């Protein structure tokens, strides 16, 4: 069987690239780490891949604001290639810093492509926090979230993850379209405040998809819960082979295999 090709975009400050590659490979894909300079200089062609993943990290040190400078680079250097990639119905996932990039470049936007109307800003706690979060998952709309259980468990590790919107209308649209894929919750799926909602996000929003369900962005790290031994309590609850996050990568790879 031909393995779908995943491009994992790297740049200065990317640091979750290798484990994201591991997750995609384990899910049956063939992931490659590619530096943005390789695409910008046309040495590597984005259109030869079926999935684009923007992994976590601190692109360009998160100077100015988290993800902003890479978002700016995508918008001004790779606009055409990305537009084409999306139009071809291909898949995009942005995790943590990747989500910040997608939102700030307007690739995940409610109104129109490359127009930012959502932001991710400083956590209410004012600091970077690494903690595990339960997420209420909505598995209908988004390709990446198919068949996920009602509640999944991933860690967050960020300082700027508070989900905010331009105006309430946008929230209405997101809800109406079923674009809100993940919401911070307690273990039973009830939306609860800090520390369950680790950053003070509006409506506990942790991850959203675009109108087509093919582009997903989320602050928590599914690639950090691929194997059972990554679970913070496996020593008391028992060691499972795989973690909740693997299915997300499998969904992406499976969709690409069938449709792209």
């Amino acid at each position, binding site marked *: 069987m031909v393995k779908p090709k995943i491009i994992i975009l790297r740049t200065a400050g990317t640091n979750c690239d290798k484990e994201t590659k591991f997750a995609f490979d384990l899910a049956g894909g063939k992931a490659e780490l590619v530096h943005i300079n390789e695409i910008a200089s046309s040495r590597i062609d984005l259109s030869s891949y079926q999935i684009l993943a923007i992994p976590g990290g601190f692109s360009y040190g998160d100077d100015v604001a988290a993800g902003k400078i890479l978002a700016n680079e995508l918008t001004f250097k790779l606009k055409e290639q990305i537009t084409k990639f999306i139009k071809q119905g291909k898949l995009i996932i942005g995790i943590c810093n990747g989500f910040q990039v997608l939102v700030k470049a307007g690739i995940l936007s409610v109104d129109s492509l490359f127009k930012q109307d959502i932001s991710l800003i400083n956590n209410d706690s004012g600091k970077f*926090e690494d903690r595990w979060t339960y997420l209420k998952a909505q598995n209908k709309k988004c390709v990446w979230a198919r068949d996920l259980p009602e509640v999944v468990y991933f860690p967050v590790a960020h300082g700027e993850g508070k989900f905010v919107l331009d105006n309430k209308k946008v929230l209405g649209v997101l809800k109406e379209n079923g674009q809100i894929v993940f919401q911070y919750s307690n273990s039973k799926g009830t939306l609860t405040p800090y520390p369950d909602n680790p950053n003070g996000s509006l409506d506990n929003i942790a991850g959203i998809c675009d109108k087509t369900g093919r582009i997903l962005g989320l602050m928590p790290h599914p690639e950090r819960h691929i194997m059972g031994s990554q679970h913070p309590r496996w020593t008391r609850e028992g060691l499972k082979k795989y973690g909740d996050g693997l299915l997300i990568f499998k969904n992406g790879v499976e969709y690409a295999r069938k449709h792209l």
Partner: protein
Amino acid sequence: MFYRVQIKEKPGIFDAQASGIIKDIQDLGIQIPISLEFCQIYNIEADIVQADIKRICEELLVDKITQEYSVTEDADSFSARKDCFVIEVAYNLGVMDPTEASVKKAIRDLGIKGIKSVQRSKKYIIRGKLSSAQIKIITDKLLVNKVIQHSVGRGPQKCLSQSVNELKATELNYVDLMSATDAKLINISKKGQLFLNLDEMRAIKKYFTKFKRNPTDVELETLAQTWSEHCVHKTFRGKIEYIEKIPNSKFQIPNKSQNPKSKIKNKKFKIKKKIINNLLKSTIMKATKELDKPWCVSVFSDNAGVIKFDKNYDVCFKVETHNHPSALEPFGGANTGIGGVIRDPMGTGLGAKPIFNTDIFCFGTPDYPASRLPKGTLHPKRIAKGVVSGVRDYGNKMGIPTLNGAVLFDERYIANPLVYCGTAGLIPKGKVFKKVKQSDLIVVVGGRTGRDGIHGATFSSGELTQESEDVSGSAVQIGNPITEKKVLDTLITARDKNLYSSITDCGAGGLSSAVGEMGQDLGAEVYLDRVPLKYKGLKYDEIWISEAQERMVLSVSKNNLKKLLKVFESEDVEATVIGKFTNDKILRLFYYDKKVCELGMDFLHEGIPLYKKKAVVLKPKLKEPRIKPSKDLTPTLKKVLSDYNVASKEWVIRQYDHEVQGGSVLKPLVGVNNDGPSDASVVRPILSSNKGLIVSCGINPRYGEISAYWMAATCIDEALRQIICVGGSIKRTAILDNFCWGNPDNPDRLGSLVSSAYACYDFSKYFGVPFISGKDSLNNEYRVDGKSISIPGTLLISAISVMDDVTKVISMDFKKPGNLIYIVGETKNELGGSIYYKTKNSLGVDVPRVDKNKAKNILEKLSSATDRSLVRSMHDCSEGGMAVALSEMCFAGGLGADIFLAEAPYKTKNEKRNDYVLFSESNSRFVVEVERKNKEKFESILKGLPFGMIGCVSNTDILTVFGLDAKFCVKADINQLKESWQAPLNW
């Protein structure tokens, strides 16, 4: 044109940064209600039009969703108003703000050209009924660190590009040593911040007299750097006259009638004398040599010690300190401390990939009154917050999980905090050794050289003084983790393509140290004018000794140069040829057409006169306190749990990414609510393999006040216990030493250093656990108004252990009601230096020892129990003793326990008491949870060793302890115990 862009949050948007600053202001003791508005300012100097600046703002600098902005072309027109204060803070000239480069890049991406400079400043608008004195406190103690920042008057900032000119035609500066008297020599050393003593200055004078010339300034600087305590470790490698004074128990106060002969016999002390040549070789390295473990690959020779990991990889580990810089500028000091130690594995062998960090801090007590602080020092809470932020920033941005650490508090760290940072790295087999070849080119890679970190090596080798922040300000460096991350990414590619023959990092001493070390056997010539600079205006000697961060030095054959430069260029990393290695064993430096230095490598590396120092160990006069026993020890237990040294460090741990790279198996926080204190962390560096690494540490400076020897023994025991607790074994464990001490010229300080080094030898040998690397940082003293405050001698032992199967890892939280609870190991009345005594304001004298008849056996037997999966949870007894271990296991597991003290092996000739059993800190003890069905198997493994089944896990929220008299002595709600433990450091 000059544009001043001011950005702030829109009304109604919660400003987390501003609210954090308000909290910090309250911490300064200012309780007046205030509001604070925070503005980010970009001062942009550029030849661009209005429309461009609008694009820069709206498309780049401003988040339209939450922020608003204004642009002016000149200073703010701000008139002072009542109860409203404006403070604007900018970086000092010469301090590089990493953001400038990013913003310039992003503006280029926008397609806008003509940017000359971008400088950031921060503006705070504070409203409230504050006095001008209070505003000054807020400015000086919180918002501005004058080492790197200043508070600006209103008006456009001076731009660096205009203010400094390039120095080209440099006059060569000679320093007149040949005609200098001794007094003059000392003066030259002092004035030049060389920290060289008279013997060393004389040796240098003699060397140059031979050549009938005076040294240039850069020659003298090179020698000072190479010979600094920081780089050459002269105390550890020199000669020591060691005297142990043992009090004579038969001593009687002499009376006049005694004859002179018996007077000699009746001495107050028995004296043991010894001459030690090279303390390091005769203790720590000796143990490693004698143990001769086949899995030790490279020890004490490279930037980090290397041991075998699996059939494809080795693993290296190094721990460093960055104390003095962190005292002056906590964020920058700690930031570059972790940045520096990360470069150690990167510069080990042909380069290792960092896989985890550790950090251990010692601070002054956080509730120390600000009014009592010594002149020139920062408040411990400010230091603590700054240090944690600095490590967080660099470690997280490098994408290296911070897995293990400790935070200790003691008044004597007020002026001289300790910041230990460690990094381990994974290195492919066959890449562990390196050799510079003749005619190889010298290539400097990564960050540019600036005036930051001048004199760092020599400055950190001396004492801090109240003037340090003025005189040595330039010794503090500013880090840029993203530059280092880029270097790391490309370096690994170049390594795997075999494009260089040797590598080392630019650490203390900068290029001087790196090139000097690499060229030691061959000789080198360097063209200083070719070194890429951050800005113009550096003198040649500044270029040579600058400790600017994020630089590595490679030796590269001519054939590989093109390919190598391409690898770096492809990811925007700067790499420059600055010279070559020769074969005449001479170090030559050039600046443009002038030769500025010519020094023999032999003299540089071996010309340093050997020291002879005196070390005296004298047992302190101490005694055990008399403490009235209380029947109910519950309040005491809560007090012990609330001690800063015992209390939860969750506030720190959560700020570090401990899961990046995906290999986390056992996290620093464990248990039913992910908030119990794990003994050690476990990581699997290769995601497809079950082979793992355990990392832990032992540190306990309080014991050193009673006996430095037993402190060191305890640190080793503690670090090893933690390895055992998570399921590891001492058989594949290696350890590292980090000594932080006061001034070694002081015989009693050196004495305690020597005796702890002896303990390191004894117990490394005893446990069969080799040292693979180490470092010392001496002169941790603070001189103020003629008085010197020394830190307590502080030894950190870090342990790393290879674990074959991480699925056998166990955590410390109680798992299931009904399970049996054992204590393994013997409890003695060893409360000297304990937290229990500390809560009673006493020190005591009976410090915990390590019992060589049993300790190793206990550790090994428990390993076989965990290997056979007979243990559900295990936790060691350390600070706070058995009581704290039990409490932590209870609240981490969300379960109670019933404990019977009479069942614990307890040995004493003196009085037996509940408080002693509960709070004694005797070594080599473990609390172990075992399922009933495994009772016989577990007990048969431990046969012949001291252990007792002391109770069982209960299905309640209550920890009940029945005392030696079978009456309860602790009855506590585990949630309350947890609250006592979590509250103190929940900042």
